[in-house]
């Protein structure tokens, strides 16, 4: 399957949730790798649709709105604008950045739900759920607070205790209270539409553990396997919620209910593609429906189940869509040894980074790729950031390029000198150089961005070593022709380096181009 050749690429990054600004964990998880991949493919002349958008539904947004005394729409408007600006500032080259509150998305997601409903894909099931009798509203897990049965913490949420980290269900809480009114919630019957994932077990095993056993990342396969091979199997999951913020359930009996945010969010990629195609006069359908399209979802590990299990089940049921060819999920990035936390302000915020390090977007992109949590959780430390900048970008990359240019400026009036006869050193260097583009491409195509970037740096190191060994600042005193050959070759390395580094360091590449004008 991975040997297949593709005519076009649909690349997505996880829709960021519009209830806070972006931090380095987001960037490292799925935006920098996806952008590097998209830039690489475009450089190779491939047909790419790189789409994303703000995820604007879900209960966390309504909670935030309540807390700040504003409407959910005001919350998402604020963070949609802020996130879009951060992506632009860091050169994340989406072809289109949309949002799930857009009309086109409501329509696309509703159509999907109706299509599955008509195919009898859902089980309608009545369950008992906590209801706030004072406010007259069903309560999402996050709207219920009580004492944790595991550790006794008094402010545990209905789905999780933040103190001890236990996953909970609202019924387990001791003395549950509604966060809306403070009253004691009562259990009340409500109807929801469930997708019975157990029906998809064989299809998913085939699709993931069969077809993609060798081209998907181990961390992704591992999680999928644990879901697919769990003793009690895949469970039915409710695709609707009792809430008023979101996409209304478009079937009889759906009044007062909305689509589950993880039903509609991945469909957001399709909506964004439709919007992009409409704006650029293209046809969106081949990007989602043709077998020769490669569909790749870049996400963080917490989204694996939604992209590898639930979304493929939805696409498969619909029937007209292709399935993801790969879901290269990253693990988590920690910060100075601790989990990044928005609420505890343990984060490096992108807008703050840019204020403190203006013009240094590439330094952060470089560090986040060189230290990417591709196979396991990794740690971002400021010391490592400094070391990678000073010892790698400055001392190797920058130093080599600058030396070659300064010497050319000094000895040959800033023009590429004519080469004389190549000696064994030049022959060897040029032969080595020739192998790099394919080597780097192969790593990128296997989503090994750290490895690819380390090869780019090896390329720069080769140039540095060549100048150190040939010493053109000495040969200039005795042998003008030899010096011309050395700098001619060194400048070929500079040119090669600027092409190879382009997907990783787009700002540096743009700056070099400007200078050469």
């Amino acid at each position, binding site marked *: 399957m991975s040997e297949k050749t593709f005519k076009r690429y649909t690349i997505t990054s996880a829709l960021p949730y519009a209830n806070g600004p972006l931090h380095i964990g987001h960037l490292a998880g799925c935006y920098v790798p996806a952008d590097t991949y998209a830039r690489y493919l475009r450089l190779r002349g491939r047909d790419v649709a790189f789409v994303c958008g703000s995820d604007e539904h879900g209960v966390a947004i309504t909670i935030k709105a309540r807390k700040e005394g504003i409407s959910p729409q005001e919350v998402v408007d604020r963070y949609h604008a802020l996130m879009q600006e951060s992506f632009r500032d860091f050169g994340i080259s989406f072809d289109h950045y949309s949002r799930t509150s857009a009309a086109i998305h409501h329509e696309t997601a509703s159509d999907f739900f109706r299509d599955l409903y008509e195919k009898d894909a859902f089980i309608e099931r009545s369950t008992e759920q906590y209801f706030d009798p004072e406010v007259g509203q069903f309560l999402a897990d996050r709207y219920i607070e009580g004492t944790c049965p595991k550790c006794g913490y008094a402010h545990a949420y209905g789905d999780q205790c933040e103190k001890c980290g236990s996953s909970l269900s609202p019924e387990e809480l001791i003395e549950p209270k509604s966060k809306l009114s403070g009253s004691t919630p009562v259990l009340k019957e409500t109807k929801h539409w469930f997708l019975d994932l157990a029906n998809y077990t064989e299809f998913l095993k085939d699709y993931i553990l069969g077809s993609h056993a060798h081209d998907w990342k181990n961390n992704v396969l591992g999680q999928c396997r644990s879901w697919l091979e769990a003793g009690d199997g895949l469970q039915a999951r409710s695709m609707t919620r009792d809430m008023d913020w979101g996409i209304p359930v478009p079937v009889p009996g759906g009044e007062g209910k909305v689509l589950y945010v993880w039903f509609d969010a991945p469909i957001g990629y399709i909506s964004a593609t439709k919007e992009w195609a409409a704006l650029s006069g293209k046809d969106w359908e081949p990007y989602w429906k043709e077998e020769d399209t490669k569909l790749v979802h870049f996400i963080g590990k917490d989204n694996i189940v939604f992209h590898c299990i639930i979304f493929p089940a939805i696409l498969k049921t619909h029937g007209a869509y292709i399935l993801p060819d790969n879901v290269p999920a990253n693990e988590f990035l920690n910060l100075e040894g601790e989990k990044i936390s928005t609420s*505890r302000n343990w984060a490096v915020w992108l807008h703050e980074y840019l204020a403190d390090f203006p013009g240094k977007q590439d330094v952060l992109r470089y560090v986040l790729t060189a230290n990417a949590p591709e196979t396991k959780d990794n740690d971002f430390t*400021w010391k490592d950031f400094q070391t990678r900048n000073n010892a790698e970008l*400055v001392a190797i990359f920058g130093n080599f390029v*600058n030396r070659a240019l300064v010497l050319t400026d000094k000895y040959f009036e800033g023009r590429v000198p004519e080469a004389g006869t190549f000696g064994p050193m030049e022959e060897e260097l040029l032969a080595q150089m020739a192998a790099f583009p394919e080597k780097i491409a192969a790593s990128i195509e296997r989503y090994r961005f750290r490895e690819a970037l380390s090869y780019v740096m090896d390329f720069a190191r080769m140039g540095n070593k060549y100048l150190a060994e040939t010493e053109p600042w000495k040969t200039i005193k005795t042998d003008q022709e030899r010096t011309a050959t050395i700098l001619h070759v060194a400048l070929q390395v500079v040119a090669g380096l600027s092409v190879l580094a382009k997907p990783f360091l787009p700002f540096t590449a743009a700056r070099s181009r400007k200078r050469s004008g």
Partner: protein
Amino acid sequence: MAAGSPVQQPGLLFEKIEDKVVEAQVQRLLDAKKANALQEQPAAPMKEITSFEAFSQMDLRVVTVLRAEKMLKSKKLLKLQVDTGLGDRTVLSGVAEHFSAEELVGRQVVMLLNLAPRKMMGIDSEGMILMAEDKDGTLRLLQPHEAVAPGAVIS
């Protein structure tokens, strides 16, 4: 790159990042951690139950600060001249590390009027200014939300 074509102007592609720059970033995180720890600290426990009679013996007033000056030999004390509505009084207050003398002049603050006078650094302090102490130890003034006549009784 063909021979004869001009190359780009040299210039630094990347700049060295100094120690103090990354240290400042680490400090910001440590500050966030400290703020979190303070946030989680519970408020001081309640004192023993008291009686209304005991409370009514405290003569609490709003007073206006007329003058304030630093004490020459003390890091902590400010010497305040306040208008109590019953005449001006001198009060020594241990707030010099939190407020400058200029910041206090003209403000209305809360004072315990009938505290027994006490001699500090050779001066009689005739009462006590009340403050709120935040979790991190910073002091905040208590002020009426609109100006009142000096000497207004708090009860």
